[in-house]
């Protein structure tokens, strides 16, 4: 679960990491009153989950009350990469002397947490990594020992020559680590971490992602969940045991297994169609699950056909067939459905579907082609 900046800053604040004085506002009027409290100039920042809000015009410096009102009015309601801005963070303007990058995340390849710092802050760290990798220091954190004080010092020394700044950075990194561990995060990023004109180190931006697998240990975090329209659908589907991601094509997919679901999308594209979604019904699929899967796919009005691609392992093909039949018992499907069922109990499943309006497919490629044809796609 990815937090919005202002939520991430709450985590930072509780962890004792210095952040600018800030206030969340929902309207230009609230922005004006917040600016009055914080003083001018101030910075107005769109609170969205997607990256690149700065380039999209979602971050503005306001020097006068008029500018506060104008910028707030512009940003609220703005569409940033498909996400509508509803919240604005009004933040005291900070006199920036230096900008650094700092993050802790989970390094899958090495199966360890990794602390990453760079004096090239405020920019895309991937770009730094590919263009000037020597400007990034990566330190692995041992799961037994945790982040060591000497590692915090080394990170501080990598970023700054000034002793006092080094000390502040080391302390902030220590707090960031504990925040990470105690809250079961999978990313804690400060970009930029700035040194002000007065030599104070503060976190100007904050990015926090919580490990979804550990949410059961933090039931209160559910309150932080703010979802865009698409995300809300994906989240709701997840609650029903479905991995669903809406895309823009015409051929809906219902598949068991994430890898096979991707491969199915790829195959549709390969034969000239466009997949309408990613949908993994998971293992042990029940008829109820199939019903919800069909509901999600058909609720997308672009969908012109559906390709059901099941390789029965745990999933029994007859269960799938029964789910399909149950889904069509009362009201016929609005689009043609091509079905490919193979594996456990596939013969039984074939019999069940015989003589129905479901279009049988012999294999994946056959199914993909038939679904594309049925959709009039490609």
């Amino acid at each position, binding site marked *: 679960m990815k937090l919005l900046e202002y939520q991430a800053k709450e985590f930072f604040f509780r962890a004792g990491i210095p952040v600018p004085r800030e206030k969340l506002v929902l309207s230009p009027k609230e922005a004006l009153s917040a600016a009055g409290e914080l003083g001018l100039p101030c910075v107005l920042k769109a609170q969205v989950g997607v990256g690149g809000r700065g380039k999209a015009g979602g971050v503005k410096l306001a020097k006068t009350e008029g500018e506060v009102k104008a910028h707030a009015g512009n940003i609220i309601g703005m569409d940033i990469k498909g996400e509508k801005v509803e919240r604005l963070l009004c933040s005291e303007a900070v006199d920036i002397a230096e900008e650094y990058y700092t993050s802790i995340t989970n390094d899958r*390849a090495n199966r360890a947490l990794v602390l990453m710092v760079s004096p090239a802050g405020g920019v895309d760290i991937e770009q730094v990594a590919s263009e000037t990798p020597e400007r990034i220091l990566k330190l692995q954190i041992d799961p037994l020992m945790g982040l060591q004080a000497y590692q915090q010092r080394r990170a501080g020394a990598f970023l700054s020559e000034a002793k006092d700044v080094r000390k502040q950075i080391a302390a902030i990194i220590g707090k960031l680590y504990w925040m990470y561990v105690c809250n079961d995060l999978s990313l804690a990023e400060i970009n930029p971490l700035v040194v002000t004109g007065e030599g104070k180190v503060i976190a100007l931006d904050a990015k926090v992602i919580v490990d979804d697998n*550990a949410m059961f240990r933090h039931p209160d975090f559910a309150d932080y969940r703010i979802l865009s329209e698409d995300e809300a659908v994906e989240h709701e589907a997840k609650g029903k045991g479905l991995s669903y991601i809406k895309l823009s094509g015409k051929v809906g997919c219902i598949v068991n297994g994430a*890898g096979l679901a991707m491969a199915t999308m790829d195959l549709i594209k390969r034969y000239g169609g466009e997949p309408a979604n990613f949908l993994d019904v998971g293992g042990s699929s029940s008829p109820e699950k199939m019903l919800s899967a069909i509901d999600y796919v058909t609720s997308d009005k672009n969908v012109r056909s559906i390709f059901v691609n099941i*390789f029965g392992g745990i999933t029994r093909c007859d269960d799938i067939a029964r789910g399909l039949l149950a889904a069509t018992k009362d009201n016929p499907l609005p689009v043609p459905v091509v079905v490919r069922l193979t594996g456990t109990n596939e013969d039984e499943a074939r019999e069940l579907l015989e003589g129905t309006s479901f279009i049988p497919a012999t294999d994946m490629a056959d199914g993909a082609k038939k679904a594309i044809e049925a959709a009039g796609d490609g």
Partner: protein
Amino acid sequence: MSVFVDKDTRVLVQGITGRDGLFHALSMKEYGTEVAGGVTPGKGGQKVEGFPVFDSMEEAVRKTGANTSVIFVPERFASDAIVEAADAGVGLVVCITEGLPVKDMLQVVSYLERKGTKLIGPNCPGVISPGKSKVGILPGHIFREGNVGVVSRSGTLTYELVSHVTNAGLGQSTCVGIGGDPIIGSNFLDVLKMFAEDAETEAVVLVGEIGGSDEEEAARFIKDELGKPAVAFIAGRTAPKGKRMGHAGAIISGSSGTAEDKVAALSAAGIPVAAEPAEIAGLLKEKV
């Protein structure tokens, strides 16, 4: 010889009294795997479908001499179950359960490495050496004895690919589904190293997907150290950026982890990449 499992594999099913645990205990037994029993805390002393149930792994290992465990317990209890298995002295743990917290898994993986216990998964279909043993949930009937090693980040996609391989008349030495959780016990490199040393494995099929750089590392290893021919399939060419495609690791972050990158890395290492699952058998036949 084979990888991870063989005729001497004796399995305990952790969570054997659950629906999935029992179903797959029977399915493994039917395949010919020696299933020694299972563990469900508080239910020791019972028998389910002829399998003895124990309260703890320590007791189960002591009384059955099992050397392998497969885990079907709910995700909140799964990391404890892995550690219990390792402490009880089994050499291989296969964790089918998915969605284990990253913090726990980082500890577990480090601990098992120290103990010398191998782990496959979490969130994996398991491992099979056709004709010898199956530990996990893979559908046994699609496999066939032979000399192709298969390693995959996926479940059903693996079955799809294996069925093409089998239908083409090529059998498998061992097939390993390494799992889709954020932190897994055995990754591509770990399994490829075992294939490199396995006399029965003559060629390798690598099934990858978007996210991370495991396929790139695998490509380097296959080129430099595997010493055996390999072919690959990569899922997710049409996956959008920034969206997690089912598996925790299957996400294109920024511009890294794309299918194009992986296909390019594999191709550059001389490893043919199938454009669709059905092509895998043909590519493999050219190599063996």
